[in-house]
């Protein structure tokens, strides 16, 4: 399964991934317009510091056995058969926050007004997710775990 990985050794914690993510999930998809949208676009990734000068960018890990999918009481969180990705169906979501309760990565956020949740959808409108493209050090990587492991060792 292809998804986004982060090589902690390469991550600067610069936050480029966060901005790219928020813009991609805005209505205008342009930074200067996105910042004045209401509601403000929300990032689905976080670049956070492990300790001084060590950081990691995390988002939905599209877990094989996803607790958010197993525990979803409305059937909104589901596994896409073809890709194995964890997807979210807004029409079914009731905003019960059970997925937030069970996600071990803290990768799901609330959209309070709409009573919906938000998470990484791997940018369906793009070839490569916006965060991966924006990452200046190529810490973020799109591919399989095997491919990622290979790039880490080289």
């Amino acid at each position, binding site marked *: 399964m292809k998804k986004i990985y982060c090589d902690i050794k390469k991550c600067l914690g610069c936050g480029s991934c966060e901005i790219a993510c928020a813009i991609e999930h805005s209505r205008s998809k342009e930074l200067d317009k996105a910042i004045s949208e209401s509601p403000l676009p929300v990032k689905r990734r976080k670049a956070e510091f492990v300790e001084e000068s060590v950081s990691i960018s995390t988002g939905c890990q599209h877990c094989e056995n996803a607790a958010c999918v197993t525990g979803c009481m409305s059937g909104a969180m589901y596994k896409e058969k073809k890709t194995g990705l964890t997807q979210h169906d807004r029409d079914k979501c*009731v905003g019960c926050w059970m997925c937030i309760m069970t996600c071990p990565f803290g990768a799901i956020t609330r959209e309070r007004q709409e009573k919906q949740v938000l998470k990484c959808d791997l940018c369906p409108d793009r070839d490569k997710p916006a965060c991966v493209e924006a990452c200046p050090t190529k810490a973020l990587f799109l591919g399989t775990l095997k491919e990622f492991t290979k790039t880490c060792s080289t």
Partner: protein
Amino acid sequence: MQYVIIGSSAAGISAIEAIRTKDKTSKIIVVSDEKKPLYSRCLISYLLAGTIDEKKIWYRKDNFFKANKVEALLGIKAEEINVKKKEISLSNKEKIKFNKLLIATGASPKLEDIPGIDKKGVFPLRTIEHAIEIQAMLDKVKSVAILGGGLIGLRAAYALKNRGKETSVFVKSSSILSQIIDKDAAGIMQRRIEEKGIKIFTGVAAKEVAGSKSVDGVVLDNGSKHGCELVIIGKGVSPNIEIAKDAGIKTNWGIVSDEFLRTSSEDIFSAGDVSETNDIALEESSINAIWPAACEQGRIAGLNMAGENEIYEGSLAMNSIEFFGLPVISVGITRPKSGAYKEIIKKDAGKNIYKKIVLKDGIIVGVIFVNSIENIGIIGALIKNKTDVSSVKDIILEGYFDYAKIAPLIKKAKKGFKEPEFKETIMTL
């Protein structure tokens, strides 16, 4: 191979899905006393509140049984299990054989043993039928009494307030949600609920339901009478163990299940609200009658019925509720009963934020987050993996706490964090 599943709610459905990932062809028969299953039990109160339409309550497609090649015997009760013959008897007088059986009979609402409880206008809120029946009489209802201040009682109160009814909740204990959260958190929730016009009376219980044929009030143990046309009972549930018990399968509070969700009888499994399993935080056998546990147990029981050897790590109490825009989530032990536990608390009264972790020997065993609920799943993972959090315990309740802060703990942990998704952290940190 013939699989039989008794019960078609969360656990039963998850089991079907799991079996079909391993065995696409063998026969699966599901027996359910509900005529129209496949709805989400947790959404019943949403339906009653009118915040979702009926369409949304069906959490699986209506062709689910057909698509999974399941023979569904609906509106039929499984009455007896013959363990030796591997056969179950049904209410329609038929008998069916099984090679592997799952008992996912769930739980039934506890009804109060008080006079008048059988009057017209008294309901539990457990099935979609209950919601529909309540809805049908709402035009004639001005005032509602809810007996019980737990999750179901308060969800029902919220729903009926939303329908414009005068709603009063009578709670025997001294605080609401006392099974789920501590007094401080309950106080914040209670204030919000009362601000929105729901009346809550703690330390009061009903001793009688008044009225001739239909309800016209509840008589309270302080002697006063509260007039109402509708009574909802939210006194928790008790597991439907009778069929297992009668068959000689080992039961305690629930059906006793091992780490493979096997019962004491060969080839018979149990999952969901009826199943008693290891509680990870309590470190003892317990029932956590909650949706995510039922789904996970159903999934693992299903896999094991299909020949896998998947281990169930155990369940954790966890609940997520929101009233009038104020959410609270709790996991594990939230009201420790002995001095062996330590608590760390952070409050911001102005923002209605309350956060607490409960620790035992440097390991988190419970957490409550009010109003600021993001990242609570990370703490759930620390509880589940029994991670020593001594090095981060002082920052866990801070707003900046997140996955990055536990990355070193994951790398260091000798046990737990076995899921492949933790690999990139372990590998690249």
